């Protein structure tokens, strides 16, 4: 098999995941997109492992680790998303702007955010 096939697959998958991370607003969907990117990396690892015939099988071992870590990550990530949802009543990434410079967020949207935050804080 030509090495290019898995590599191109990996690249395209990575690109799609990237788009998802950047464009999706729901935090859970962002996490899914991250999984796509991780999988793209895994494909790469496996393909190169096979191609190089590594006696240590570093590629495959690393893929296993990545899968494991991905599972842990998704667990933690979901926990965080859940907590944010409990506090703010939203899982919209673009509404979470506590890092913003004061004054940098357009006024209309800020009002929206405070409006959303208020019931959330009541819920908390």
């Amino acid at each position, binding site marked *: 098999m030509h090495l290019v096939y898995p590599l191109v697959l990996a690249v395209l998958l990575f690109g799609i995941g*990237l788009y998802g*991370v*950047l*464009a999706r607003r729901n935090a859970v969907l962002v996490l899914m997109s991250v999984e796509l990117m991780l999988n793209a990396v895994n494909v790469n690892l496996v393909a190169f492992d096979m191609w190089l015939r590594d006696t240590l099988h570093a590629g495959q071992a690393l893929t296993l680790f990545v899968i494991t870590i991905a599972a842990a990550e998704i667990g933690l990530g979901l926990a965080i998303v859940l907590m944010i949802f409990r506090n703010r009543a939203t899982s919209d*990434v*673009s509404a*979470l*702007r*506590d*890092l*913003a*410079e004061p*004054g*940098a*967020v357009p006024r209309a949207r800020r009002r929206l955010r405070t409006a959303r935050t208020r019931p959330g804080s009541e819920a908390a």
Partner: protein
Amino acid sequence: MTTAAALATGLPFLAAVLGLAFGRRFPAAARALATLPLAASVLLTWAVAVRHDSGGVTEHGTELTPTGALDITLSMRVDGLSAIVAALVATVALLVQVYSAAYMRKDPRYSSYAALISLFSAAMLLVVYTGDLIVLLVGWEVMGVCSYFLIGHYWETEVARAAAVKAFLVTKLGDVPFLIGVLVLGVGAGSFRIGAIVDGVPPGGAGWATAGTLLMLGGVAGKSAQVPLQTWLPDAMTGPTPVSALIHAATMVAAGAYVVARLYPVFLASDATLVVLAVMAALTMVSSALFAFAQDDLKRVLAWSTVSQLAYMTGGLAAGGRDAAVFHLLTHGAFKALLFLAAGVVIHLAGTGRISDMGGLRRREPLVFWTMTAGLGALVGVPPLSGFFSKEAVLGAAEHTAIDGGAGAPPAVTGWLVIVAGVLTAGLTAAYATRLWLRVFFGEARKPAPEPHGPTPVLMLWPLAVLTVPTVLLGVIGLNESWLPAWLGDADGRAYGSADAANGLLLQAPAYYDLAPRLGTSLAAVALLALGAGAVYALWRRDPAADPARVLGRLRGPAERGFDVDRLYDAVVVRPVWLAARATRFVDRVVIDGYVHAAAQGTWLAGGGVRRSQNGNVQVYLAGVLAGFVVLAVTVAVRA
């Protein structure tokens, strides 16, 4: 001899420093401090003058600024001219100090006043004695600043404050070209020493000499209140009267003429300068005599008269009569100081300075009446008095230039200008002097005299008596060629009547050293004198209560205001300067500081712009990071 000259200069200076530093603490010592050093100076200057045997120059100096190419030396250069003028200055200064001791006896600021007069005397003596133009400039400006402080002695009044600033600024404006002229002469001759400059002028003149002397005329006009910088002197009369007598009549204002006389060979080699000087003198002479006629304030009459008489000196210099001009400087110094000091007593008696409020004062203080009459006579040029001889000497020199001319003589046009203006002015002078005399001393008092302050202090009277002597008699020294001309010598230091003179080595033709009156000009001047005085007398006889100046008609108002030159200057110089100042401040605040603030604002704005991108949306950050990474990767890949 130079030591004595230096001492004569230094003593009043020391007195001034002590007076300024400790005068307030020891007011009792102020009078002694004011008069004694100056008395010593008088003795020293007279000793210098007497010991200065006819002709020759004694000079001694020490270096002030070792800056290579051009050295400034603190030198004393004693020759006939400086010796005799110094003696005049010191004497008048001492008399004024004595007079002031009585006149200002109740003034709480007497100590600083007296110290400033001492400082002024020192500065004037420095100007007179020094042999270096830059050092002369030092004395020149120090005189100016003393004049400023003394005019502003009554700083409680707005008039005095304004007059003081005006006097200083107008003269300072003249000093700008003067300073540049000094630089031009110094660089041209390769030295600032008067001796070197005088020797350095080539016989036919030189470009630098003409340029330098023309520029120096600015300072001469400023200091001697000649057209076009004449307007400060009448205003300067707001100072105490003794100050007017010393600074604004006898000495400082004559410094302009003195400097020209001091550098005479340089001026004589520059025809253009002499013509300009003559025009200046002629204009000043006639116009200020006219202004004097229209004034109602006693001191302003005398002030304009001073301007007019100073123009006789500058005119004499322009027409080649250096010795004649110096002669007039000496006699004028005596009679004008007398007139001012007498005017001080008159104002004291009348309780006002307005002529229209005076009248009939001759009975109140006969001594003042007689001394002032002598002074006015000398001013007018009544034949046996000193002013007659000196004025005729000037006119005689002008006549020689106009008619005979000859090699080395100034252009004939200067002679004609001075003769015409001088004779005309003689008539005008007679007119205003007569008017003053009649209106102040005769007729009835037009305003009830104030309560007498008590008898006039003796210290104020005897300087008048002392000054009357030269006022009456000084003229005779011009009669014999072996007296004043021999003493003065020519500007190169060669004595008239010495062997050099016999060999024809004098700077000018012998006729210029002959100060005796000449028939033609004398007749013309005396005739106009009689005409002017007679006309005013006739007017006065017709109506003793009315002012003879009414004859001027509609001209009177403008003439009283000096033809409104002040308003012209206000419009042409003062206001534009204020406008420029405001514009500059605006530019400074808005444009130049604007750039600075704009730089700061720009930084803030850029910061604000970058800050806006920090909107808290993590996806935007991430997109930015990745986009940057892609761009970097592509750039590197393309470059590789």
